[in-house]
């Protein structure tokens, strides 16, 4: 029991030090209390926002936007990547486009999307899709190219129709790389959805909540939402991806429990 308590204490120690440092900073009067609220106030605000359902509501809106955008990105990215790997003309056409699109941060497009589609859902979702698509394309292309050609030839000999070739040979064969592309894409989508909500959202979402709280100087809300973002992000990353990896890759023997 005391050993367990010691373990917990050791795990919490870094946070206690940082929290204490912040608390001293907050109470030193260096910043106005409105701008640097005590951690106790932040905790109270966090609890109130969770209990009233406000924070979960924001998180749900954010996750919904991210989910739709990410789904679009995954569908488009896997399809385009596969086409690029299999059809030379498509590859030659799209390679420079991907090369140029990859280094442009998705956020740079948002003002344009806002002008085209107005403030609101479309601009944010498009941003998410846009940010996540490029790494997925690149990885899907590599994955399909890396498939053992014997598998494809074998399937051809057995007169597999193209759609079955895609679903039964290419997709499973390329899955490890596709998944790592999806993982990069998801990380990008997560950053993008918060950014997009800051600029383009109109009423709900974690990014919007932060920005809105800033404008009315509710620093405690800002910090509480940042904590909410951290928790949501952690859940998305671990729950979704560890689950998928365990389910498919390890079971199919394509990966031995290692990461990345």
């Amino acid at each position, binding site marked *: 029991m005391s050993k367990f308590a010691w373990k917990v204490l050791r795990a919490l120690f870094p946070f206690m030090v940082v929290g204490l440092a912040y608390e001293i900073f907050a109470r030193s009067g260096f910043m106005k209390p409105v701008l640097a609220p005590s951690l106790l106030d932040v905790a109270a605000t966090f609890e109130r926002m969770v209990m009233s359902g406000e924070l979960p509501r924001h998180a749900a809106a954010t996750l919904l936007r991210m989910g739709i955008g990410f789904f679009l990105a995954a569908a488009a990215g896997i399809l385009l990547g596969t086409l690029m790997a299999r059809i030379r003309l498509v590859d030659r056409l*799209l390679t420079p486009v991907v090369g140029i699109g990859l*280094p442009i*941060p998705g956020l740079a497009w948002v003002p344009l999307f806002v002008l085209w589609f107005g403030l609101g859902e479309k601009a944010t979702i498009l941003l998410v899709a846009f940010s996540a698509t490029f790494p997925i394309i690149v990885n899907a292309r590599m994955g399909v190219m890396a498939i053992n050609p014997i598998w494809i030839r074998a399937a051809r000999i057995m007169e597999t129709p193209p759609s079955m070739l895609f679903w039964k040979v290419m997709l499973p064969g390329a899955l490890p790389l596709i998944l790592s592309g999806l993982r990069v894409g998801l990380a990008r989508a997560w*950053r993008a959805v918060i950014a997009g909500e800051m600029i383009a959202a109109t009423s709900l979402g974690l*990014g919007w909540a932060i920005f809105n709280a800033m404008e009315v100087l509710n*620093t405690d809300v*800002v*910090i509480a939402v940042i904590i909410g973002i951290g928790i949501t992000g952690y859940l998305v990353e671990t729950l979704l991806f560890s689950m998928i990896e365990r389910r498919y890759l390890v079971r199919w023997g394509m990966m031995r429990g290692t990461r990345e």
Partner: protein
Amino acid sequence: MAVPRSGAEPRWRSLVRSLLDTLIPLIILAAIWQGSVWIAGLPPKLFPPVEAIVERGFALAANGVLWMHVSATLARLLFGFLLAAVIGVVMGLAMGRSRRVEAFCLPLLSVLMPIPPLAWVPLFILWFGLGNMPTILLVAFAASVPIASTVWTGVRSVNEVWIRAAAIMGVEGREAFWKVVLPGSMPSVLSGLRLGMGRAWPAVVAGEMIAGTESGLGWMIFASREFLSTDVMFVGIGMVGLVGLFLERVVFQTLETRTLKRWGLVSEGAS
């Protein structure tokens, strides 16, 4: 179709070929854009024709406005990135060499990891006001976490044999750190810096959009929305892509080939 690019082909021809390989698809893309705008009858104010974008690009480049924004962005990037490099490398090295520092920093890093750095900007704005400071801090924040974690793994993977060999020859403690561990972890420092730059570049553009810096590429794109200058937006977006590509391809790749190959630390095929 599959032309082997062997040494038999003169250098300039392969250069021209790769240039054409890049340009032709882009021209086709531009044509598709222009064609679909015409056919759909979309308002040119919102969907500017290619020639308007190019024209505006040259005009902005000629009167110096574009360069003013680019240099403002690069200055912020440089400040933030230097800050991140120092913090990240020091932290990574310390974490890799000392159990205690590792036990202290690792939980903090793993808590920071899932929070998009941009989420901190409103807090930075509240604390430091609009302007350069939040953007620079955002860049530093965004870049230092990947730098620290890459350097940390790199230091731990320094070949144990080297350290033991050095110890046998009487090089230990501080000297071993400077002579063995630090040079040995240089590849991971470089790849960490590269990764950090990959994060820093979107961050600086994002920061400029949100933190009201009144100059810089991000601000240029964001501010054009009020005047419906979509052509300026496209110029800005294109410039963001070009500079980002330049930083990644030219700056870092040259740095890597110059240093790592000379040190004999990369074998063929390693990125």
